[in-house]
């Protein structure tokens, strides 16, 4: 009954849920959702470059994402324009360049819809391998970064005054987010990937009292969302990525009454 590709999809989904949820807490705390979007939007360019250069597509996405993250890190502290304006320009320029490149390459070699909205059922054994290695690396980095990142999220200068290497930690975190997004694009696609970072974290907020609880809670909610979304996709024959995002959104909406009560109490 369970086909091989379904097992792969399920494993990939679980891995990504475990990766994105804790990272997503910091994305929420540091208001980096827009940064996540920008990184995701450049993913298509990575795919196109991968095809043109005949290298592994995931590698192409990773390289382009990290390059953009490095560019954004370098531009931190600039005062010419508001950060979100610059991020918006970069994000849409990258997406437009990616769309253009994809069109030039031709539809036969690039499943545009699959990259825009995700195609988890097409996850290959090679993708899974990338994902598992990435999972281990990112989990390790997160454990190392957890405390300094939390200190920075609360107050950057206070952390800096007390010896936290703020720029280094922040840069490492942004690269981590870029890496995670690059690995996860197959699941829900370029346009939806940021939701996997922020929705589980937002849904967990109402029920937790410590940062660690929030990370674990977000991971739990994310796993439920991914598995339920995949099941929905299978039974109703809907696209997997949007199904997962909608299930997660429904879970978040269900928590809103608790969030409101918490805010009042």
């Amino acid at each position: 009954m369970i086909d091989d590709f379904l097992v792969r999809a399920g494993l990939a989904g679980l891995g990504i849920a475990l990766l994105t949820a804790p990272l997503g807490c910091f994305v929420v705390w540091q208001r980096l959702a827009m940064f996540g979007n920008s990184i995701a939007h450049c993913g298509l360019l990575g795919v196109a470059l991968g095809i043109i250069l005949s290298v592994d597509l995931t590698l192409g996405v990773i390289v382009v994402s990290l390059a953009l993250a490095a560019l954004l890190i370098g531009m931190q502290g600039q005062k010419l324009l508001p950060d979100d304006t610059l991020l918006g320009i970069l994000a849409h320029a990258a997406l437009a360049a990616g769309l253009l490149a994809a069109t030039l390459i031709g539809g036969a070699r690039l499943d545009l819809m699959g990259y825009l909205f995700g195609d988890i059922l097409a996850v290959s054994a090679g993708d899974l391998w990338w994902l598992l290695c990435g999972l281990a690396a990112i989990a390790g980095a997160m454990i190392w970064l957890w405390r300094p990142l939390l200190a920075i999220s609360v107050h950057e200068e206070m952390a800096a005054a007390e010896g936290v290497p703020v720029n280094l930690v922040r840069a490492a975190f942004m690269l981590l987010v870029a890496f995670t997004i690059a690995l996860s694009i197959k699941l829900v696609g370029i346009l939806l990937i940021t939701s996997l970072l922020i929705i589980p974290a937002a849904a967990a907020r109402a029920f937790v009292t410590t940062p660690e609880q929030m990370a674990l809670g977000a991971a739990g909610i994310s796993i439920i969302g991914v598995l339920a979304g995949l099941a929905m996709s299978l039974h109703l024959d809907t696209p997997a990525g949007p199904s997962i995002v909608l299930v997660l959104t429904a879970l978040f909406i269900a928590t809103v009454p608790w969030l409101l009560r918490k805010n009042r109490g």
Partner: protein
Amino acid sequence: MALPAVIPLRPNGSEDKPAPGAGEALVTGDRLGLTLSGKTILENVDVTVHAGEILTVIGPNGAGKTSLARLLLGLMPPTTGSIARAPGLKVGYVPQRFPVDPSIPINVRRFLTLTVRVSPSAIRSVLQEVGALHLIDRPISVLSGGEFQRVCLARALIGVPRLLVLDEPAQALDYAGELQLYELIGDIRRRRGCGILLISHDLHVVLGASDRVLCINGHVCCEGVPEKVANHPEYARLFGRDAGKAVAVYRHRHDHEHDLSGAVKCGEDCGHKHD
């Protein structure tokens, strides 16, 4: 730690107030200048914080008080001049009142150990010291202004700093709360013998609580013991003619509790200067 002590640290609690400039120099700014995007923020500022003293930096809004603190904390480099710190100097910092994002679930206990790892008993004792032990399990987002300031103070103290930098600690407090806070800060200095750099724009209460005052407005306007600064013409020009009187009133009230030791004494090192 081999600290090149300029003058040996006086023993804790031997006197109510150490004379100005008594302890070892913890951080020294030498002819500091700061220019940010073409605008001169600070010019030719000399400042030293010694162990065991409360140095208050006052000045009107936009005078560069917070910038000076940021320079001394090493959060940004000065455009001109230099900064020397005692080797291995541990710093505790209470920034200007700031909001903790309510999306971060964090209670007082955890807030205190953001950048240090300490035992549960150390957390309790430092909260006890600032009178906030009852808040230990409270989420940060529900604290009142005064509670939050005490918790921030405890957070800054938990790493056992030798230099404490407090930026407008009384901003959110009413008059009574302000008096209490400055009394607490004075107690901390006496108990721990650490140097305290206090940034403030409010005048009378903070002057009464300080050993030395540095009045700046981009440059150093005047400096010295509180009475000296309060009666200085530059001070009157910046804060109005009556500002000095309030200090005298507060000092007088406090005279019943503390002797005047360092306050009336004024050596060469606390004389004011001009540019």
